[in-house]
Structures are given as structure tokens and as C-alpha cells.
């Protein structure tokens, strides 16, 4: 018998960002159902700090840009409220302060350290100059890594009391979805939006 589709009432948020030396940071936020199917997507224009900001924010600048600027903007833009948000960016911790929705950092399958080297093994293919390099500065705001569902995971400090809830939600999602797979979709979509948006910008520039 054909299985009826499971209810898709719990949405899961995926928050990620890519960095381009030329343009700055691009953010993307994808909400998926428990079956991994897209419900909503938002991405940002690139964010590039000024030289003065680089000096003033120092090593905390990426956390400020990815978390407080890009992350919080994307979460505010979304119409759906997820039960859980997953990110592959250490700096995204600032997106939810205080964390109303549990925020989970997905480390690679291989990585087991707690140094913030998040992206080994995560697919981030393509010839684009956009990269997903990790930065330091927000490490202490995450819990220690724990292994679950084939991944090393961390949750935002302060969510310890919700660990059981977090793991239950992750387990529900992992029944059908590789936990890290949607990040690749976000990266591709950001690149696509940048590619097409770039063409439009070129056109406008030439017309002017």
C-alpha cells in the first residue's frame, strides 16, 4: 500500500551563509518540512563591512554580520516559524538572542573536535568564489559537541534544558533527511540568485 505522506506540520529552518572576497557575505534561510521539502526560502544581498567596521569589530565582525545582521534579518523575513533551526555557521549564534527557537549547529560527519572547524565533508561544490569558511569568535556560545544521528552537533548555550526536545526533533527530521544536505541547497540557491541578480545589475549599470 502506498504510504500516506506524514504530516508536515513541523517546519525546520536551515540557516547558512557564504562568503565572497569580492562581494562580502550572503545569507540564506530555508524552511523545510519533515520530509525535507522546501516551504520557504530567503536570501540576502551581500553584506560587506567597511574598513572602519573591520577595525572596530575586530574578530567579532563575522559573528556580527552573519548572526546579528544576516541571520536575524532572514529569520524576521520568514513567515513560518520553525520548531528547530539548524545552521552550519558557528557565527550564526547571534541570529537568535535570546534563542526563542532551539538553534543547532551541524558539524561534519568527520569532525569531532570543538574548535569550530565545521565544514569538512560538507558539500559546497561549484566553481564559485563563494565559500563557507569558518571563523572564530563565537565558539564559547555553543555547547560542547555531542554525537547524534551520524553528526557532531552543538546547540546554543542556554538550551541545555531543551536537549531532549532538540534531539527528538532532529530524529524526526533525520528519518527522511540527511541533516546536512539542505545546506548544499541553500548554497546553490544563493549562487543562483547572485548569478542572475548579477546579470540584472550589469544590465542596469550599462543602461545607466
Amino acid at each position, binding site marked *: 500500500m502506498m*504510504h*500516506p505522506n506524514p504530516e508536515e506540520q513541523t*517546519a525546520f529552518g536551515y540557516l547558512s551563509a557564504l562568503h565572497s572576497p569580492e562581494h562580502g557575505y550572503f545569507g540564506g534561510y530555508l524552511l523545510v518540512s519533515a520530509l525535507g521539502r522546501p*516551504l520557504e526560502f*530567503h536570501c540576502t544581498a551581500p553584506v560587506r563591512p567597511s574598513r572602519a567596521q573591520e577595525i572596530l569589530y575586530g574578530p567579532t565582525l563575522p559573528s556580527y554580520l552573519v548572526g546579528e545582521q544576516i541571520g536575524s534579518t532572514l529569520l524576521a*523575513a520568514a513567515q513560518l516559524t520553525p520548531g528547530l533551526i539548524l545552521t552550519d555557521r558557528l557565527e550564526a549564534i547571534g541570529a537568535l538572542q535570546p534563542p526563542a527557537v532551539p538553534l543547532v549547529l551541524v558539524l561534519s560527519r568527520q569532525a569531532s573536535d570543538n574548535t569550530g572547524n565545521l565544514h569538512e565533508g560538507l558539500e559546497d561544490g561549484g566553481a564559485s568564489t563563494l565559500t563557507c569558511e569558518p571563523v572564530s569568535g563565537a565558539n564559547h556560545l555553543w555547547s560542547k559537541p555531542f554525537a547524534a544521528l551520524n553528526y557532531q552537533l552543538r546547540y546554543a548555550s542556554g538550551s541545555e534544558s531543551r536537549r531532549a526536545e532538540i534531539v527528538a526533533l532532529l530524529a524526526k527530521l533525520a528519518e527522511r533527511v540527511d541533516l546536512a544536505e539542505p545546506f548544499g541547497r541553500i548554497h546553490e*540557491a544563493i549562487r*543562483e*540568485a547572485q548569478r542572475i541578480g548579477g546579470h540584472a545589475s550589469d544590465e542596469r549599470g550599462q543602461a545607466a
Partner: protein
Amino acid sequence: MNADRPRKTETRRMRGGTLFKMWQSELTNDGSHSRDLDSLSIAPPVCGPILLSLAPAGVVSWQLNNPRLRTIGCVFERGARSKNREVGGAEPGIGRLKRNNNEEQSRCSLLPAPRNTRVRPPRDLVKLEDRLRLLLEPPLETLLTSRGLRFPFPPFGYQLDGVAFLYPRPEAVLADEMGLGKTMQAVTAIRLLAHQGQLRRILLVCPKPLVTNWQREFAIWAPELPIAVVEGGPDRRQFFWREASQLVTITNYEALVRDRAQVCIPDNHYDLVLLDESQRIKNIASTTNEVVRAIPRSRSWALTGTPIENSTDDLVGIFEFVAPGLVNGQVKPKAIGRAVADHVLRRTKDQVLSDLPPKLFREAELDLSPEQTESYRLAEDEGVVRLRNLKHELTIQHVFELVLRLKQICNFDPTTGASSKLERLEADLAECALSRRKAIVFSQWVATLTELRSRLARFGPAEYHGQISQARREATIERFRDDPNCHVMLMTYGAGGVGLNLQFASYVFLFDRWWNPAVEDQAINRAHRIGSQRAVTVTRFLTANTIEQRINQVLEQKRALFDAVFNETTAPTNGGLSRDEIFSLFDLRMPANTGKAA
């Protein structure tokens, strides 16, 4: 300026989504949005300026302005339903499908290897929201498992790539080499789209002998999809066309042409028209081509292992159905290859089936027997003299008649029945029978096969050709497969060339050569396909210093043409068998008033 035009068009077409809402918002400090539908372009990089001020006491203070960060976004239909709490199990279209029973489900297996097969948007899909919708789809494996769609056998990775190719494309040609499972890929893509409610009415057109095969494939790979086969007499067919409400309607090319009045009418719209063995419409001037182009449809898919049989015009004929106007035969093969690149998926066994047993070729170049040599020389000399005497009345039919006559002598001497090919074949078959292997012998003539049948009786030959009724053909295949005393199947290229699965045969003999290599390849691939357990040895008979050798040179040119379009290698610009080439087989010159191209 010219270079700018496509971009302007692209921008205009990007505005205003139909499938889901898209907006661009500028988020202000307090989190409120302002919507702006004017542009989807990515803005210049932004970050807040730093404001410096000098306080009265002389203290310099600073304040960072939060930036106004632009976003683009979209809410999918599914997301909108979720927001309104209208989510549920069934999607549009699924209610029309039959349900598998529990037993069936339990016998099936889910997808095999952990693999993420991504669906990529076609190149000519220009709306950003449509491209994002496809890019953000989960991998094919997740799409399938999320709907509980199971497979009886684990598909190969390249087959899932083929499904991912078809899935987003309204215009597609799946041109995999024979034996790679084009049928399964098409059925699975149909299945997925049907379960998503994107396909509700599908017309599948195939050669008549393959109708049963398609029914069987649907039963294996998509047993829940309801199917109707349009067949029988005119009244019965008319009833089918009028009343059939099944998701998939299967018919054959001949019936379709006969029933064009029922099919090609505006209110008879199909979500998908799928042509199997689409080389059948290669002739753009043919009635079949005209009829398939006239069917109202949203998606046009074509399956063929031989998109080019003779010349690039064949591909043009197929594309006039798939994507009218995309290609024309006037441009060079490489340019055609570039034009169709995003619409055609072509893989060969060598590329994707590293574990398939090898296909070994043997060129059996034989001398004619003395009797054949004498008959051949006599026929050729007399024939050429006769052709020359025809002068301006000479037509291509006259030349063809001589070619066929000489080829027949290369098979058997008409007076004595002597045959160097048969002697070699008997020896090979004896070895084949000793090792308990099966062999297929192809010829273009039933008469040749009939002669072989009587002379190869000790090998228990089975026959499969145009004089064997459809009803007997299935039994013939079963006998060839199951009877240990039946070591050889005698087949014509026409009857046995397509759609048959004979992977239990280890030897293929091409007793005479067909006019183009694609048909030969199809014949060979009856045996060399998925499921083959042993290497397949192909023996191509060729008699030295005869018309067969000259034809073989033309065949090699045609292979080069195919490579030029699909493999981006250099090749002659036209490898087709022109009338000039046919006449030149006998050092004849074409009369001035005759046209081009065979």
C-alpha cells in the same frame, strides 16, 4: 547593445511569479518590511555607516547604524498551505492512482546506495523563482522516499541521474545507449510527477511490438499507475480515445496515425506525450511526424538510442516534436550538438556501466566461396553494364536492386547454396552449443533466415521476424531462453532490433550488414544490456572485395557523424549515405536531374 538584449528579456521575465509569492524586502532597524516588487537584482553590498560626533565636552563618541539589509524570498505553495494549516498527506493527483497492496510493498525495496541526486533547472528556465524552486527541491532519493515510492530492484545511479534530467524538463530527449534502461527512467520520472499531481494525462507512443514491454515495465516500476492500451479495431480504439480515463494511455505509431482525428484535437490535451523509439519520426515530412507534432501537450519527451541514424536531419525531425525550431539541419554538427546539449542526455555503457561484461567485436572478413565468387562477378559485371546502359533513365532504385542482389550472393550462392559465411557460422555455433551458450543471428532478409533455419537445424533454431505472428513471438523468446537445445535465434533487424531483452545470449552474429550502424547497434544491444552476466561477442561477417566492404566504409563514416554531434569529436561534416555515394559504389555518376540524400 545586442549582447544586452537577452538580459533585458530575462529581467522582465523574472518579475512576477506564478507558483509562489516572491518579494524583495528591505528590513529596517525595527524589523518591519517594506515590499518592493520592482526588482529581484542583488543590491550593492551594504553595511551601516559609522557616524562620529563631537560632544560639547570634547569627547568623541560613535554610533554604528544598523544596515538596511535587502532580502529576496519566496514562500512555496506547500509552505503557504503549512502556514494556513492545510497540510495533509495527499497531494493533487495522488488520489487518482491505484494503491499497492501491503504484500507488494513489503516485497519491494527502498532506494539503494546513499546518494544525493540533485534536480537541476534546465538552462532555458529563466524565471528566478522557478530556478530556485528546483534548486531547493530535496535530492531525488528524498523526493521518492518521502512519497513511499519503492523500487523492485535498486536502480543504478546513472538511472537516477536520468530521472533527475527528465523531471524538470518539458522538452527532453533521453538518448542513452540501448540497454541502459531508458524505459525505467521514463517510468520513474512519470511516476514521481504523477504523484506530485504534475501529470494527470499521459500519452505514450511506441512501436507496436513494444506495447507489451511497456505494460510490463509499468507493472514493475510503477504498479500503482493506471494504464490503458489503445488497440483493436477502429470502433474499439475510438471508444478508448473517447472514454479512457487512465493516467497513462499507450498506443502504437500506426494506430496513432490512423486515429489522428480523435487525438489531434484542441480539447484533447496531454500533460505529457512520450515517444519511444523516436527515430520513427526522424523524417520531418512523414505523416507520423506531422501527427505527433499536432498532439496538444505540455511536455514532450522522446526516447531513442539512435537519435542520428543517417544524418543530422534525423535529429531535426525528433526536435520538431520536442522543441520545434530549436535546431535545423543547415548548421554544422557541432553547432547542433551545442544547441541541443541541455535537452539531450546521452550516456553509453562504457561511461556508466563499468561492471557490465564487455562487448567484444570480431570482424570476420571472409573470402567468397568459388561458386559465390563466380556468381558475384557475373552479377556485378552484368549489373553494372545494365546500369550504364540505362543512362538518363537510371534511378536509385536500379542501383539498390543491384546492391541487394550482390549482398544476397555474399550470403548464399543462388545456384549451389554455397556460403562461406554459413561455414564459418556453423563452426562458431558448434563451439557455442558445446559451451551451452546462446547466440543470435541477424539478417535483413527472411529468406536468408529461412535458408539458415534448414541448414542449422542441429542447433534447434528459433525464428523471430516479420512472418512470425505477434502471438507466437513471446513463445519464441521463451523457447530460446528456456530450451537447452535451442542454441540460436534467427532474427531480422526489423523485427528484433528494438525493445527486446535477450541478455541471456552471449553471441551475436551479423550475417549481413544493415545500412546504418545505429540499427546494428540496437540489434547487438538486445544481448548486451543490463542483466548480462557474460561478455557478449559480436561477429560481423564481411566478404572481402565485395559490395559489403564498400558499404562498411560508409557505415564507419556514419559513426563518425554521430560522434561529431554527441561526443564533440572532429568528424566529416556529413556521413549520411547520399545518392552520390550510392552511385559511386559502382563507379557510376548520378544523372543530372536527380536530387540528394537517401
